[in-house]
């Protein structure tokens, strides 16, 4: 069942899916290296793209992927091992459990509904570090989930673009 007016999409390319996730991991690593500890407010682009594929391709990108990418982020950020892995797993679980409902909404509505989800993922990481005895990250950290939700429409447009091409390619037509 689909929302009225929603275009039929081409099947997704697994290669594109995997490469988008790896590219976001690299971008995350680069940005966090660039800003160091002052980059608390940076949006977690890898988490956002994981959520995107969880919502649009839940049978292909599942919780195991989220866990694995989380572990890589942990090692890169020299954070507590399992901190990102746990947050991404939980994020992925809730994204998968709400994916049918979410796709009935227009993109801005989806972004609004994702705010609590993205905030939960960050809260979980703050809570874990607080329990371990590292204190709290400070107010600028709250900007991150807001920025992620703002970026949701952009991510949707970019990552759905390959599936929105025509099913019968024509040399005389641009797309």
């Amino acid at each position: 069942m689909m929302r009225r007016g929603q275009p039929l999409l081409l099947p997704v390319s697994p290669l594109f899916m995997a490469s988008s996730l790896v590219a976001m991991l690299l971008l995350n690593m680069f940005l966090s290296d660039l800003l160091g500890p002052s980059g608390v407010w940076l949006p977690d682009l890898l988490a956002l793209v994981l959520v995107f594929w969880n919502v649009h391709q839940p049978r292909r990108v599942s919780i195991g992927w989220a866990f694995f990418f989380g572990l890589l982020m942990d090692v890169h950020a020299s954070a507590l091992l399992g901190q990102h892995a746990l947050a991404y797993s939980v994020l992925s679980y809730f994204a998968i459990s709400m994916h049918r409902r979410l796709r009935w909404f227009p993109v801005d509505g989806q972004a609004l509904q994702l705010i609590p989800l993205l905030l939960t993922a960050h809260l979980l990481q703050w809570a874990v570090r607080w329990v371990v005895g590292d204190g709290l990250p400070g107010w600028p950290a709250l900007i991150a989930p807001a920025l992620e939700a703002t970026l949701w429409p952009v991510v949707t447009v970019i990552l759905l673009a390959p599936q929105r091409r025509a099913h019968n390619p024509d040399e005389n037509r641009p797309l």
Partner: protein
Amino acid sequence: MLDRSPPALFKQGVTAFVKLTICAGLSFGLMGIDRHAGVGESIRAALATALYPVQFALRQPMVWAAGMADFLQQHGDAITENQRLERALLESSLQAQRTQYLTIENQRLEALLELRAIQSNHSIAARVVAETPDTYAARVVIDKGSVDGVLAGAAVIDTQGVFGQVTTVYPFSSEVTLITDPNHATPVMNARTGTRAVLFGAQKSGPPLLEMRYVNANADVKANDVLLTSGIDGVYPPGLQVATVNELPDTLDANYSTLYCTPSARVAITREVLVIIPSQPAAPTAAETDSGGKP
């Protein structure tokens, strides 16, 4: 009891909830063993080694940018910098000559008193390549690892004083916890009075500071007192400069007060550091367990 839920229409494999339970369980398990047992460290080291080529490539633009900034530095700046360095070299060569004399004298006296000889160390020059993105800790990554002979627990200094301690060693890089990390403790000795104290990293925004906690109201501490490593932790060699005491408040608290000190090492800007490898490997977390700073 009868199972009343209908069978699934489509076979979808393991349910998301089961997967979440497994992954969350694994995460909590990893958190438990991280930085404690050997297993956590080896998982981290294996993943870090796999990530290393990628991290290396991603950090190159920043290394180039730093090199470029050095290259584009004004000619006049370079000349004044050179003059300053020559002056500093002259001063330190004077000191070094005196130190040589004092070392020989000290050895004779130690032999006379039958004291245990102070360990001699060798050192490895390294370059700071990145700050770790983790907000909660003050750590940097250096470009030398276990392949180059870096050991966990080794002290790290820069030209001005103590910089930090190696806490995690990977094959090609290592993580250094700075002395300004809130969980890191450095045992020090006041050069003027000889009283011992422990400095912690201060959790304050602004320039990096160190805290001397629980100072008695009648303690003999003055502003600009120089604090040196005491060497009793077995990690830092004795006599390295750590910090100078900041301006004191007019009256010290009647109970215990906290004094702030400015680290001598330029922790925020230094790029070249020296890793001091003890001739007998120190226990990796000797400084941390000695002070009880880490849980």
